[in-house]
């Protein structure tokens, strides 16, 4: 058990947020410093210094967007690809898709240009037979040619390598012997799963990120060492687990959703502690609204994510549903006379009209300001001294009010209603559309903006309540501190369930489990125990999509005890849950085995975040101001949110302000402070 502080660091686009937990004292501290885009290490170290470290800290866990940004801005390595003869264009041909359903213009630029993708003689068949052994001399020549053309990283992707990696391994050995750095990604090591484009794309994006992430981590580790840090340094993965920096260097593709995953981890823990097993997390940013689902205390994982058109990473990732509605989303009336909010956004520069930085088209934030929901005198973030309410009002009147025949106030309210409807749609998509009952879920906003809208969202979707964490802005940094250690592995099996060789499958599962477990152990963080979870991707023979089938099995004395009957039972349960009707009599197939090893971290007592015992309602009161709800001005009480005591009850209409968020409590809602300092907003 650690006794010195553990620190979570979340580097965002504008701010770096830190959360320090001191297990000895059961106390915490937070820090917020400006991020330094392009040199994130500066903000990172400034933040640690602000907390009095990093010397003396036990562990630092980091949620990073360096990988994501390198992908979105196409700032990865100069990449070379070595592949099977006849297949060098797989990356550029994609799955024959296009960017938009409607409209045919636009092109696709692959991350490795065509002359950086070289073919070598070799061929493995679908059943694993080696049809043509790999020509190692040709591989060596290809590696030399790529280096001569300036390649900084190399991906090796052979057809059917998932079925038998022998050719790919031989090629990898030859390339690694000649390659001047460790940035070589091999498809069968990264993703031994059928589908050549997804495997190639994952391996290529991984290689593309290796030098970027390695250099970033190297820089941080150097700075930490110089500052006298002697503890463990870890990275949050897209699956919400944490990994060692050694693993992060080998598979940087797994950092693609590092930052958001940390936020959802914390959200799940906060909701669970507050007594809610089911939550929908909402992150309202400048251009988008991101939603994730937590059911039974666990976040939902997706098998893959598309980072941008044609750039696919296939590895278990937190499932995020994004819609184009953020604070900066522009409101306009289309030529058919319909009010639209987004997806076009004014971003953070020039930003909303009220920022006074040159934008003249009204945004969602402008509507919130005009309605009095956001305090124009105390803008969040601290960069501006006040917001231009009149400018925002004029823009709304001109661009929305006039075409719809509404006055400025009614138009501003209409913008908020349409934006709420879009956000509610995203919440329905992840909950009702997947067969969940919304009454069993709470909305949990994190980041700065979501708390303005959650009240309306619980009414619109019929959610049980909203839960606003005490420190919405540092949710991701808290997640870094409490996330479990995790390692996922996948292997394509392609077996019939009928007459499956259970003994052979058992051996396979035991091997996978011990390999995954070893990675978790090597991370070296204190864990209570290591759990191994098995899941099969299965379907009826002939279907192409699969359902995930969790197996209720553990490795006990070298065996999982798997049997055909156990698998069939688990499959039928999962299939019935997904589609409500089984198809008896049809043969069933096992496609893929997924193995996850999870190092469960010691429980973190969130009561450490609670308000001080001497807080009082009177001490938190900040008077009242006029806020527009449902077609008219209401006198809303205003409160300093962090000064409210446990058990405080605030009736709407009310506005609760804190440095990094504003909470709106609608007239027919009530907010109460729970024993962790969370705000629970419910219907009267």
């Amino acid at each position, binding site marked *: 058990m650690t006794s010195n502080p553990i620190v979570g660091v979340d580097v965002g686009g504008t701010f770096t947020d830190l959360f320090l937990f001191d297990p000895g004292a059961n106390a915490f501290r937070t820090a917020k410093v400006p991020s330094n885009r392009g040199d994130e290490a500066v903000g990172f170290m400034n933040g640690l210094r602000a907390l009095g470290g990093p010397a003396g800290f036990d562990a630092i866990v980091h949620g990073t967007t360096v990988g994501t940004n390198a992908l979105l801005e196409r700032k990865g390595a100069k990449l070379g690809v070595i592949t099977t003869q006849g297949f060098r264009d797989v990356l550029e041909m994609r799955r024959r898709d296009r960017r938009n359903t409607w409209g045919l213009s636009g*092109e696709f630029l692959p991350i490795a240009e065509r002359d950086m993708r070289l073919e070598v003689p070799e061929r493995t068949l679908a059943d694993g037979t080696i049809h043509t052994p790999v020509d190692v001399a040709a591989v060596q020549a290809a590696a030399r040619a790529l280096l001569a053309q300036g390649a900084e990283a190399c991906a090796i992707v052979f057809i059917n390598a998932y079925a038998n990696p022998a050719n790919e391994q031989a090629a990898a050995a030859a390339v690694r012997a000649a390659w001047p750095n460790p940035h070589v990604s091999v498809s069968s090591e990264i993703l031994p799963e059928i589908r050549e484009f997804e495997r190639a794309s994952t391996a290529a994006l991984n290689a593309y990120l290796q030098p970027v992430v390695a250099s970033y981590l190297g820089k941080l580790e150097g700075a930490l060492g110089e500052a006298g840090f002697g503890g463990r340094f870890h990275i949050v993965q897209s699956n919400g687990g944490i990994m060692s920096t050694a693993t992060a260097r080998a598979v940087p593709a797994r950092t693609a959703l590092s930052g958001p995953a940390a936020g959802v981890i914390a959200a799940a823990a906060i909701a669970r502690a507050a007594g809610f097993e089911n939550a929908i997390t909402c992150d309202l940013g400048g251009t988008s609204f991101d939603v994730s689902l937590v059911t039974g205390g666990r976040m939902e994982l997706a098998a893959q994510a598309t980072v941008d058109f044609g750039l696919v990473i296939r590895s278990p990732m937190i499932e995020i549903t994004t819609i184009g509605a953020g604070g900066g989303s522009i409101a306009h009336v289309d030529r058919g006379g319909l009010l639209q909010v987004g997806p076009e956004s004014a971003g953070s520069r020039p930003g909303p009209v009220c920022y006074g930085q040159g934008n003249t088209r009204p945004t969602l934030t402008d509507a919130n300001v005009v309605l009095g929901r956001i305090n124009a005198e105390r803008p969040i973030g601290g960069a501006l001294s006040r917001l231009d309410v009149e400018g925002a009002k004029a823009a709304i009147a001109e661009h929305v009010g006039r075409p719809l025949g509404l006055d400025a106030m009614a138009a501003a309210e209409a913008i908020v209603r349409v934006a709420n409807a879009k956000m509610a749609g995203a919440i329905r998509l992840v909950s009702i559309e997947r067969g969940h009952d919304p009454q069993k879920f709470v909305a949990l906003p994190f980041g700065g903006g979501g708390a303005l809208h959650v009240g309306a969202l619980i009414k619109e979707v019929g959610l049980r309540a909203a839960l606003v964490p005490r420190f919405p802005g540092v949710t991701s940094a808290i997640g870094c501190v409490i996330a479990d250690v995790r390692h996922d592995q996948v292997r394509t099996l392609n077996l019939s369930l009928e007459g499956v060789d259970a003994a052979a499958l058992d051996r396979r599962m035991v091997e996978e489990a011990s390999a995954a477990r070893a990675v978790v152990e090597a991370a070296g963080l204190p864990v209570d125990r290591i759990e191994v979870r098995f899941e099969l991707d299965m379907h009826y023979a002939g279907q192409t999509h699969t359902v995930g089938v969790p197996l209720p099995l553990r490795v006990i004395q070298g065996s999982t005890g798997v049997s055909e009957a156990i698998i069939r039972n688990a499959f039928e349960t999962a299939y019935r849950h997904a589609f409500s009707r089984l198809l008896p009599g049809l043969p069933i197939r096992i496609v893929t085995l997924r193995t996850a090893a999870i190092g469960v971290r010691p429980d973190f007592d969130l009561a450490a975040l609670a308000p001080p015992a001497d807080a009082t309602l009177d001490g938190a009161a900040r008077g009242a101001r006029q806020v527009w709800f449902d077609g008219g001005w209401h006198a809303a009480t205003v409160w300093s949110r962090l000064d409210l005591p446990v058990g405080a009850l605030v009736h709407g209409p009310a506005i609760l302000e804190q440095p990094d968020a504003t909470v709106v409590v609608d007239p027919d809602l009530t907010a109460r402070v729970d024993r962790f300092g969370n705000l629970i907003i419910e219907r009267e």
Partner: protein
Amino acid sequence: MTALDPVTLAVLKGRLEQIADEMDATLYRSAFNPIIAEARDACHGLYHAETGATLVQGTKGLPIFVGAMSFAVQAVIRRVQNGTPLEPGDTFIFNDPYEGGTHLNDFRLVRPLFRQGRLFCWLASVGHWLDIGGNVPGGYNPRATESFQEGMRIPPVKLIRAGAMQQDVLDILAANTRVPNSNWGDLNGQLNALDLGERRLSELLDEHGEPRLDAAFAALADRAAALMEAEIRALPDGTYAFEDYLDNDGVTDERLTIALEMTVRGGQMVLDFSRSSPACLGPINISRATSVAACYVALKHAFPDVPANAGVLRPIEFVIPDGTLLGAGAPRPMAGYTETILRLIGVIFGALGKAVPERAMAAPFGTINALSLSGQRNDGTRWVMFSFFGGGFGGSPETDGLHHANNPISTATIPPAEILEAAYPVMFTQWALRPDSGGPGLHRGGVGAVYEIEAMSPGVTEVALLGERGRYAPFGVGGGADGALNRFAWQTATGWEAPPMASKVVGVKIQAGQRVRLESPGGGGWGDPRQRLREAVARDIRLGFVSAESAARDYGYRA
């Protein structure tokens, strides 16, 4: 009628679209055959109780169905008007291409939604079933001269009668296919989608009431019509003629013409196809309903912001004479309908380009290349590998064309080579972009692809192809040149052979170790290739998209 404020309307629009999207998603996840599950050859929506007009349609479905489905609902409405009783809990099934269908593979389910005893609207689902009997597995018989050779034809009949599944109908369906399990699975998926849509729409009606939803449907259609009118009004008045050709119908080796006079007058448009060829013997006829749907797809690509409901077609008049290639009736064969609608869509792009040259889009590759390889396994069971292939998009005013894209009528992803190799005794020896196939232009057409497949089956592998663009290339615009022609060939003991009908052939037999090779067209070029930036041409040469010879000849490029 209830007046509706614009904000409530925007909210209801989002809810309704979500219902249709959710129906789509349900079928994709539970469908059996990859043409639905991966290629998304399916569609769902809500349709007007009296007229069958499209009220709302899913955004993820196959684009061509977005226009076609209201004709399917109209076919059911006619049945009811002619005396078929309609009860709550009924569901119709059919695939009749002359009664609101497209081709025989597309099975439609149409279900009424009743509220307090009144028919409120229809829900419908369509999906492409893998095999429907007929001479050729998979249905794409390039030599069919009558619908009867293409497979079973089911008129609108009740699959579910007041809640009771009709086992005798199921038995008839199962007896008329090579793959009853696959079709049964897809049918279940479509029923799942309808059940879900019915439930969601009922919830929305409980919340808002029928009058408000009725008002919303009317308002959304009015707005779609207004948007389309605004797009048309932005075009200069005049008549713009354009024509393009199909290689042949697979039976008679004569070219077929699709000719359009597009007349723009204010906010109204007339699409007159009178000069097109008469209906043909082979399977590339389409019905008037399919032609209207194809026009809708073309206009929606040209004007992507226009929403998906019937209001869009209000400002447009169609002239499609009966008995033409585009207005064919029973029993003209229609399995290859995709080729004809692709050419029709290109012709609309061509005519729009004449109206507004600076917004013109060069032709996309324009063929689905339905290729099937089949044979028998050692245990005597039959295997059929069936897939569609990609090609290049045309250059546009903004960019070069996209390489290896899918046709405008589809958003399907191509099955991975590894999935095909795992399922069938074949080995891909090439899966690559095709040099010099993109039409030269200031903005070059996207390049097509080369797929080369070796037979691994110890016995005979039979090959059939239904494709196009083997004789008439995807056109360039504004001085841009054409893309490359489609090419298909197979190996024999003595060398390579090509089909006499260019891209249509059936009954070819190859042996283990022999290969077939398909080279798909690129898109046409946009603008004068001699104006293309030298660096862009040099890059194309370096990357192998353009050969040095083509660079010198077509672009006037000298190193």
